[in-house]
């Protein structure tokens, strides 16, 4: 029983503290349909990476993306970061993703995760869900979007 307790502590207290790096090596696709490895595109050393999970049918996601898009170039002058927008649209709506983002005039790096391999590997329940990755480690996450949430994101991005 006590061993079990220690094992529990190991799982929930210590492993998280020990864990570092090696983000899941899951394949997602870019807008041309080419497979890319998530761990390679998220391992930049000198810049923070924001991953935003969204879909073309999710109104709060679109509100969040539009807010981030309108402030993107301005904020990038202050903080070195880039946004990778990962759409979880499946076969029902995936063909709309590229025309949608071009038609909206958004300016992020776009990827698709149509059978949710990455969403599952990072244990994301609902969208919108946003993550900050610095030096290969996830340092911040937020689920849901309420207007103004972007301020917290920028604050976290500025933190060393």
């Amino acid at each position, binding site marked *: 029983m*006590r*061993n079990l307790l*220690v094992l529990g502590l190991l799982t929930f*207290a*210590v492993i*998280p*503290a020990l*864990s*570092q*790096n*090696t*983000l*899941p090596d899951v394949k997602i696709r870019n807008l*041309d*349909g*080419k497979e890319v490895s998530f761990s390679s595109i998220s391992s930049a050393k000198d810049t923070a990476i924001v991953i935003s999970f969204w879909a*073309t*049918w999710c*109104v*709060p996601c679109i509100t969040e993306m*539009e807010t981030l898009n309108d402030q993107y170039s301005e904020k990038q002058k202050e903080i070195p970061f880039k946004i990778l927008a990962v759409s979880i649209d*499946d*076969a*029902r709506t*995936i*063909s*709309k993703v*590229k*025309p*949608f*983002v*071009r*038609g*909206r*005039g958004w300016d992020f790096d776009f990827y698709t995760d149509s*059978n*949710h*391999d990455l969403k*599952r*590997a*990072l*244990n*994301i*329940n*609902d*969208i*919108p*869900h946003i*993550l900050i990755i610095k030096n290969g480690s*996830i340092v*911040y*996450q937020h*689920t*849901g979007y*309420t*207007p*103004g*949430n972007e*301020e*917290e994101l920028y604050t976290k991005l500025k933190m060393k």
Partner: protein
Amino acid sequence: MKGYLHFPLRTNFLFCLLLLLAEGHAQLPNISRGHLSGSFESYTQFYQPDSKINAILPQDRVGSNNYLKLDYNYNRIAVGIQYESYLPTVAGFPFTLNQSKIVNRYFRYTADKFTIQVGDFYEQFGSGLILRSWENRQIGINNALEGVKLHFNPLPYLNLKGVYGRQRKIFDYANSVVRGLDAEIDFSKLRSNIDPKTRFTVGLSYVSRYQQYTGPDPLFPATVSAYGSRAEISGKSASLSLEYVYKTKDPTPVNGQDKTSGKALLINASVTGKNIGLNLSLRSLENFDYRGERDAIGTQLPVNFVPALTKQHDYLTPNIYVYNAQTAGEAGGQVDLFYNIKGKRNRTSRVAINFAQYRGLSNKNDIFSISSNKYFSDFSIEWKKKWSKSWNTTLAYHNVYYNKSVVEGGIHDNISANILLLNALYKYAKNRSFRFEVQNLFTKQDDGNWAAAVAEFGFAPAFNIYVNDLYNYGVTNIHYTGIGGSYAKGATRFAIGYGRQRAGLICVGGVCRFVPAATGITATLTTTFNN
């Protein structure tokens, strides 16, 4: 500290070692210890009787769906489990269960040129028209395969996939096996390894399902096979893709013991430019229901994925008449146009237009014999305008035609509806916002007119409260009123609501979900951690 001093020596030692390791981690930040990720999701409802909306009232008036998932990866190895607990299932879920179990477990090894996974896995070939195993907790689908899957990249331009396993059937497995092979060749990489401007790929798939047959017919197909081929050419600003799947005969109760083969053809084309995007999808299919067991119906044991290719709506009233793909036979398509007009000082206008139409087939074995029997059509135009830093609005109009007899079964009048919708967001301080939505659905058929309104206050970064009402003032005079709120911190979110809910997709407080018809309290807790 006294708490663990009296532990047996070994345990104590282990505990100290763990503390040491944890300390050591601070000094040796470069040592990778892998990545641990987990999530918990609980969706709980407390029901009250409400005969007015025919709400499903379970015997003990509580439904609770809970999911715990853990995944760990270290270098090339990944392992994970999923535990599900239904205490019991929420009302309106596609199955009823009062049980808990570890349902998924897997081990995966990734090498340079291949990945092997044993245990439970998800997979999709092409667009999923031939094979898709996936999970959707809101609608209660999980057809993960239990067995082996292999991805193999022997050459830079060749991608091979193989799967073998049995499908998950709620807390059990289907009494059949599903086998599949898929090969994708990237012709643009045949000669050089450099990413070309134009990609040209071809894919070939084979999927078969074997379920033992014990009946008297010596020619009965116990094995049902499907053959798929697809091709895609995509450049910077245009792409074209085609997919064709042929399925051997498969007499089932769903297709009325049809002894002919099935076919599906999917064509997609898109053109994009700066600030503009156009997409066209065409699909025609017949006798294309493909399942793990012959007697399966509804959301049970799908082998492939045949979604309705129409606009997926995100507001209350457009979700009243929603189309469902007719696997017996249908032909149709949709076109989408998205464009934006940059205004002064970021005051952009964004426009989205969609038109979709589906019809029956006049010859049930010919996917090109489009009949005049219209199943569904939807024309919508949406205009989103940013007026200032604090104001933006969305105005939308829909015209819907819904053949209720075909989509829902039975004999009904065909429905023609018009919908007007306004959504406005006012950000009155840096982290304070107010959103309201008013909409009306006009129709002379079925339940007649519907009106809806939503008011929502956001207090970033954490709180959100809303009140909404969907009112049928045509026939039933029923108000579906709801009130609720949510609290989010980091990757944890708690939401609670009280009221009547009509079945459908609802998006409030930052997330979208499918919900069944019910009256009562709904509480949702989700959390994620990644370390």
